[in-house]
């Protein structure tokens, strides 16, 4: 055997190319090894994709499991005596009058009648069980339905966020009292309420209709959601016409010369500028030089529009390029002017592609945070913006702010806000996919 091998080698040295039979043998002998190498690469590829998909699934899983409870919170049901004298001392249901009333005291009294705290200290602790938004809630109820006055009605109040965390089990009974955020007395009160069957776990009426708040149990995303909508509308109104106009100009009208070349390079580079830099530009140009107010959706939308412009231009140009020249020739052939060709034929045919690109750009704008931080949309704004010049915030920024807060409950609320944001994004992308499928034309 060894002899043969040596002989073979000698042969090989002499003969320059091995003869086919020998080559076939060599190849056949090495094939198992090579095949296993091959399947290893395939396995690596599969593993890589699997890993990426796992990351994605884990991300979604962790957000959803954290965020789903964020849509719910604990409430306590109390019997409220709607005494007009005390709630609405002036009797005109005006904001001033309701503000002067002592609805909180009524709620507290009702609470005390159940848990019976002794002494000032215990009463002070007991007051904190119910969220501080209780008087606002009563004021809203009597405004909506003045018929409540004079009745005794059961009303649900949100519990304070620490109590909520305790009921969810984040604050443990076993932890020594000095290390917990709530002490044994309060736990006793909660047990009492629980025995009476007054505590319930329900869909939160704050998360979707509330606005930013320092009290996590009252915080909601309505303000940020509306802010996002306003900002996106400004962004769309600016970026879409500008993007389409630029794309049409570059593809259909402009001659290929230095200037258009510069514009093209410029657009490509603009697409690579980090988003935070657009924020700096917004801060320096719109706010410092033009003197526009901070924190308003108008400025936010303008900054995001400039940021998404390259995306829209690039996809619109691709859509225009996909319109076959025969369509243009046909239109020119019957004597249409250049603009008529563009507006009657090219743009309608390219519209699906342009819209898809625009939606993708808008989705990008919707998720963007950093540039909006720069122009002050990070301010703590309780009021829900009514127009593009009212101060407001947007969903991603709201998420960023909440993620920074220490209270346990904000984590759930943040995740809930993320779910809403992701849902919004998924809807937009689904729309893009639908448009592409529905309007796609094959030439």
């Amino acid at each position, binding site marked *: 055997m060894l002899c043969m091998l040596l002989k073979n080698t000698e042969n090989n040295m002499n003969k320059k190319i091995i003869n086919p039979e020998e080559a076939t043998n060599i190849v056949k002998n090495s094939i198992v090894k090579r095949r296993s190498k091959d399947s290893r690469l395939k396995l690596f590829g599969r593993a890589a994709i699997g890993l990426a998909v796992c990351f994605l699934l884990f991300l979604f899983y962790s957000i959803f499991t954290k965020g789903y409870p964020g849509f719910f919170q604990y409430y306590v049901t109390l019997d409220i005596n709607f005494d007009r004298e005390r709630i609405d001392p002036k009797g005109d249901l005006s904001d001033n009058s309701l503000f002067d009333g002592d609805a909180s005291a009524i709620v507290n009294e009702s609470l005390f009648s159940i848990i019976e705290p002794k002494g000032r200290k215990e009463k002070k602790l007991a007051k904190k069980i119910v969220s501080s938004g209780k008087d606002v809630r009563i004021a809203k109820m009597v405004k909506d339905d003045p018929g409540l006055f004079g009745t005794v009605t059961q009303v649900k109040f949100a519990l304070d966020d620490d109590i909520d965390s305790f009921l969810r089990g984040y604050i443990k009974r076993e932890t020594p009292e000095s290390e917990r955020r709530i002490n044994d007395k309060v736990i006793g009160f909660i047990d009492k309420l629980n025995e009476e069957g007054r505590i319930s776990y329900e869909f939160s009426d704050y998360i979707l209709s509330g606005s930013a708040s320092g009290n996590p149990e009252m915080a909601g995303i309505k303000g940020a959601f509306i802010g996002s909508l306003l900002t996106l509308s400004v962004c769309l109104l600016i970026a879409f016409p500008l993007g389409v106009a630029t794309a049409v100009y570059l593809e259909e009208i402009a001659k290929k010369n230095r200037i258009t070349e510069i514009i093209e390079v410029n657009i490509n580079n603009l697409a690579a500028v980090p988003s935070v*830099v*657009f924020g700096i530009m917004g801060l320096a140009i719109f706010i410092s030089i033009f003197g526009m107010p901070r924190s308003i959706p108008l400025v936010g939308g303008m900054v995001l529009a400039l940021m998404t412009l390259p995306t829209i231009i690039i996809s619109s140009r691709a859509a225009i390029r996909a319109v076959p020249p025969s369509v243009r020739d046909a239109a020119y052939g019957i004597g249409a002017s250049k603009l008529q060709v563009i507006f009657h034929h090219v743009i309608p045919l390219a519209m699906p592609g342009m819209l898809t690109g625009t939606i993708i750009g808008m989705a990008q704008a919707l998720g963007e*945070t950093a540039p909006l931080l720069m122009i002050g949309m990070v301010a703590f704004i309780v009021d829900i913006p009514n127009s593009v010049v009212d101060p407001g915030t947007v969903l991603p920024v709201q998420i960023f702010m909440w993620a920074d807060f220490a209270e346990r409950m904000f984590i759930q609320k943040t995740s809930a806000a993320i779910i809403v944001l992701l849902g919004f994004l998924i809807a937009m992308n689904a729309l893009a996919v639908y448009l592409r499928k529905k309007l796609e034309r094959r030439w």
Partner: protein
Amino acid sequence: MFSFFLLTGILIISLFFFLLGYNRAKNLINLNQKNLHSLTHYYGIFCSLSALLPTLGVFFIFTICDDLVFAELVKEYIPNEVINSKDYNFTIVLAQINNSVEGLIFGTPPQWITNAAEIWKSWVIKSNILTMIVCAITILTSGFLSYKKIHSEFRSRNAVEKIVMTILAVSSVIAILTTIAIIFSVVFESIRFFALIPYDEFLFGTVWNPQFEGAERAGSGQEGLSQYGAIPLFAGTFLISIIALCVSVPIGLFSAIYLSEYASSKERAFFKPLLEVLAGIPTVVYGFFAALTVAPFLRSSGSMLGLDIASESALAAGLVMGIMIIPFISSLSDDVINAVPQSLRDAGYGLGSTKNETVMKIVLPAALPGVVASIILAVSRAVGETMIVVMAAGLAANLTANPLEAVTTVTSQIVTILVGDQEFESAKTLSAFALALTLIIITLGMNFYALHVVKKYREQYE
């Protein structure tokens, strides 16, 4: 509100001019008993556009300029003793006056501020009236002139097309204006920064410790308490990018290889968009994920192994950023791998290569420039990424190569410095602009190079 009403008014008047032009064209047809050069509605559009556009221009110039003019004028109403005082800062004074104008009064402002605010308010009314009058004059004259132009020989379609072409050309210039605005906003402030802090200290200094001037004075009274050495920031950015690349390059590249060479077309159609979902998730969500899921997980598993991992670590931020940029590498590499001509694969297979050998020895070397470009693009994305590092990497400017410690990056410092209240003149605020300038230069350089490589690569196979 005023601007809104004025704009509506302008629009209504230009609509009115449309009708005027339209009717005049109709009348001309009836009068001359022959058709005009263009369709009648073009005459209307011509009238209304020529009335609208100059007026809009005037309107925007007035609205933008009035605040600037007021800011200049209001200087006269600031008492001398305030101007001469040590803490005088015009930006802050202006903000105080503006707040007072908008009715946001904190405490009791000095009398001169209230006075200035009153005067400011009267200016606003005057300027509004002025704007309205000028707009009215413009819209009426330009509308009337264009109306006059309409006669039987007038070619309104050509005129309208000329206007529209100009609008299209102007909008394509917006992209350039944006770039100029970016450069303008960053460069000027950077120059002011480098006037305060020498550039070699910024580029090569190893301690980053910016302080507001107020804080500086309140300190021990030492000069130069602030230090602006950006090396720790560059190092932090670099460290996080490297960690991100360690995650994303193998995963992205192997995914790309699998998708382009091994996967069936069905698998490809399913997994490619799925991977791209990773790029569509907002960065703030990644930041939240990094800070509240990955970092605690790393910390607890680190302590099990006896490692002390900071709660805000470069590792957590880098890992999550790596996940985020996977699709940049996988999709782009997949594209360039697919662009390698089939004939080369055929040659490989014809010689009896396995898939592995074809990919590793023929396709990948041929696609290498494109793959490198995709990695560079991913790096530039990682360097410019902000939210993940702000939320998960921390703010401590440590100069370390240890991924388990907290580091800070260029972008997170920009955000920290510029969010919230600023003293516009302080070196600390200005340093953010210098950082932004560096950031732009780095990312644009990488992008430029990557696009250049890709372009050359495409030409090779066309």
